[in-house]
């Protein structure tokens, strides 16, 4: 075994040295050189590890280093434009203090590495990969056991693509951000998977695009602060406290994302705080505490927030909007079985919004009107007039009585005695009677049908078993025989 390990390490060394030897501004295919050997090579092997830093230091700007499998010491400092390509997942192992890979030059690409073992200082923001250089490309890396995963710090025009980032097993208050993009405009964040970290955060990083990612089990799936012009599409945000949160920014397009089960204490699928000029289209917002939370959005005059063709289903609250919400436009959305379809947080009403655009409103699963002329648009407006719901706006603590028949009774009473009916808080003048078709969204899973069926059948069996015990069917079977003869009575005996 030892010989084998030694041989492998030796081969790695040789590969590295060869690449170094040949690095004259161009890269040659390394496999071809694999059998080249030289006894004159400098000694770089220590206890089976290779000093990758020495190779980087020795490389010329613009070189490509192909790194074979193995474990390499951190920290790595990349201070010149280089491409590092890992083959078969080489591991860059940090010693549990500070950053693991630090990029301090533009045009650096790091691809195909396992990066692990940062420090745990939230003050230093210890990161798996930290870059302060523009045009950084971080691709197909696995960042694990990292306080901060990938940290772009004034690294404009960078690409973060296909990485998997896993946080440390720490309480949420001591975790760092899986992805932090700080003063790095025009960043492309694509097809990454992130688990068990704090936030993915874009801060002062306008014109960035977030696409096809899957961020789960964190605090903020995606947090944008003081950052404008973003496209966010085809992402999955699941089981975070909050799916997407936008704070202080302009021009956001969010399309066809899945926001599922984001249910922190004040959790929502999407939160908008002083966000202007926002379009939400074709998103599936399901099972969250609140589907969308909106406060003072849009903020800028003349701008709008537009909700078009989204699905809001099975959230405790579909839309939780503050009464300062205005110039929001809702069209062709599906509001399906949310515990409360629309809530005015803090009380008030939402009448200064357009609940239908161009004569088309939204589909409300609790719409009780009718459509006499068959144009698929209800003839009565949809209004949110639940007495209990309006109480909740003013007294959120009464939410404790959610699902209690008493709260239904209140609504029933309000319907029976219109005197008690609250003022309508919103009104959709053209509610749809048929749900509009939705565009596809990622991440839909089928529930375990067989297991559920098994459980249900087991319950029925249990019930039948209990009843059979009561009827003593076991003992009654012999009674099918004739009853009146002595022989029959004998068969009944024990």
């Amino acid at each position, binding site marked *: 075994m030892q010989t084998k390990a030694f041989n492998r390490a030796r081969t790695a060394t040789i590969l590295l040295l060869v690449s170094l030897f040949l690095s004259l501004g161009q890269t040659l295919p390394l496999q071809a050189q694999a059998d080249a050997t030289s006894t004159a090579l400098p000694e770089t092997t220590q206890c089976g590890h290779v000093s990758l830093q020495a190779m980087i230091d020795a490389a010329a700007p613009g070189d490509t280093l192909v790194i074979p499998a193995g474990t390499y010491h951190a920290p790595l400092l990349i201070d010149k434009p280089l491409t590092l390509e890992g083959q078969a997942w080489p591991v860059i192992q940090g010693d549990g203090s500070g950053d693991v890979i630090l990029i301090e030059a533009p045009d650096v690409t790091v691809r195909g590495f396992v990066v692990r073992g940062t420090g745990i200082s939230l003050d230093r923001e210890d990161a798996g990969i930290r870059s302060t250089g523009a045009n950084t490309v971080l691709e197909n890396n696995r960042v694990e056991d990292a306080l901060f995963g990938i940290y772009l710090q004034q690294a404009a025009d960078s690409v973060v693509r296909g990485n998997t980032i896993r946080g440390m097993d720490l309480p949420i208050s001591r975790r760092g951000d899986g992805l932090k993009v700080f003063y790095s405009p025009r960043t492309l964040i694509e097809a990454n998977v992130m688990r068990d970290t704090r936030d993915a955060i874009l801060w002062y990083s306008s014109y960035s695009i977030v696409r096809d990612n899957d961020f789960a089990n964190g605090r903020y799936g995606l947090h944008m602060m003081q950052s404008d012009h973003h496209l966010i599409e085809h992402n999955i945000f699941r089981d975070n406290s909050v799916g997407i949160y936008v704070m202080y920014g302009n021009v956001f397009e969010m399309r066809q994302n899945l926001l599922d089960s984001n249910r922190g204490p004040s959790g929502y699928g999407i939160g908008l705080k002083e966000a202007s000029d926002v379009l939400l289209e074709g998103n599936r917002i399901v099972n969250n505490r609140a589907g969308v939370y909106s406060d003072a959005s849009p903020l800028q005059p003349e701008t709008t927030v537009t909700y078009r063709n989204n699905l809001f289903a099975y959230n405790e609250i579909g839309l939780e909007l503050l009464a300062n919400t205005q110039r929001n436009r809702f069209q062709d959305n599906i509001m399906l079985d949310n515990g409360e379809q629309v809530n005015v947080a803090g009380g008030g009403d939402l009448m200064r919004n357009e609940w239908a655009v161009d004569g088309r409103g939204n589909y409300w699963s609790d719409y009780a009107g009718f459509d006499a002329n068959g144009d698929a648009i209800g003839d009565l407006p949809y209004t949110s007039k639940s007495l209990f719901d309006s109480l909740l706006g003013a007294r959120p603590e009464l939410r404790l009585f959610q699902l209690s028949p008493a709260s239904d009774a209140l609504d029933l009473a309000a319907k029976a005695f219109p005197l008690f009916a609250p003022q309508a808080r919103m009104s959709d003048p053209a509610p749809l009677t048929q749900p509009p078709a939705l565009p596809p969204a990622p991440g839909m899973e089928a529930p375990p049908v067989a297991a559920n069926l098994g459980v249900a059948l087991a319950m029925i069996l249990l019930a039948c078993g209990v009843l059979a015990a009561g009827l003593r069917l076991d003992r009654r079977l012999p009674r099918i025989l004739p009853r*009146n003869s002595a022989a029959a*009575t004998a068969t009944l*005996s024990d």
Partner: protein
Amino acid sequence: MIEFVDLTKRYGKFTAVDHLTLHVPAQGAVALWGVNGAGKTTVIKCLLGLLRFEGQITVDGCDVRRQGRAARQRIGYVPQELAFYKEMTTFDMAEFYARLKGAPRTHIAPVLEQVGLAEHQAKAVGALSGGMKQRLALGLALLADPPVLVMDEPTSNLDTAARSQLLQLLTQVKQAGKTIVFTSHRIEEVETLADDVAVMEQGRLQFVCPSSALAQRIGLRTQVKFVVPGDQLDHALAILRDDGLAVRRNGVGVIVDVAHGEKARPIHVLGRADIEVIDFEME
């Protein structure tokens, strides 16, 4: 077999049973006699542990209060009217109580046979006649073959035929050596079944006497109506009155008040006077 010592049952200020002390010997049969409200049923309920009481009751040495189950194990109980779970069949009912009493299932068939219900074992209990229900009650009481049979007015809700049928059965049971305690206000029941009678009045035990002496001790009298030819009515009245009997007229007949055991005397008196007795009935 059964000892009542100073049995007292109070409902608030009302004393239903007042310091009753009574001994029922093994294989003996004692009737509790008295009008409604005399406290007979209360005694039975205390014996079964259904009521809280002062004093002491033991069955075969088992204290009813402290060893209730053991005491009741020795008792078969026939209520005045058996309350049924109507949906059950006769057999199911018998089986249910057999299980409670710990009686083997093999007892069920012979017992139902004994009380003449073998043919009806698949019938719903609610569909049985009054006599059958009471026979079923007796059958249930006998399932575990207990030494003691306790009955509360066992025949009072039955018609004549059913009553005699049940009494016949009970006589057999008595001859089989059971100790019997029952309440009654029917003299023929007492005379047929009981050895001794405990007479109660307003909760107090007045006296105990052999059942044959009961009628005399309590001065039981019967009203007998005789129908005689209309033209002899006045004559009959006079003759009977001359014989010292209390007589009054009633339509086509006379009503005579006679002591228990002397019901035939007016017939002899009238016969001697050649007055034809067309019919008579007891009221």
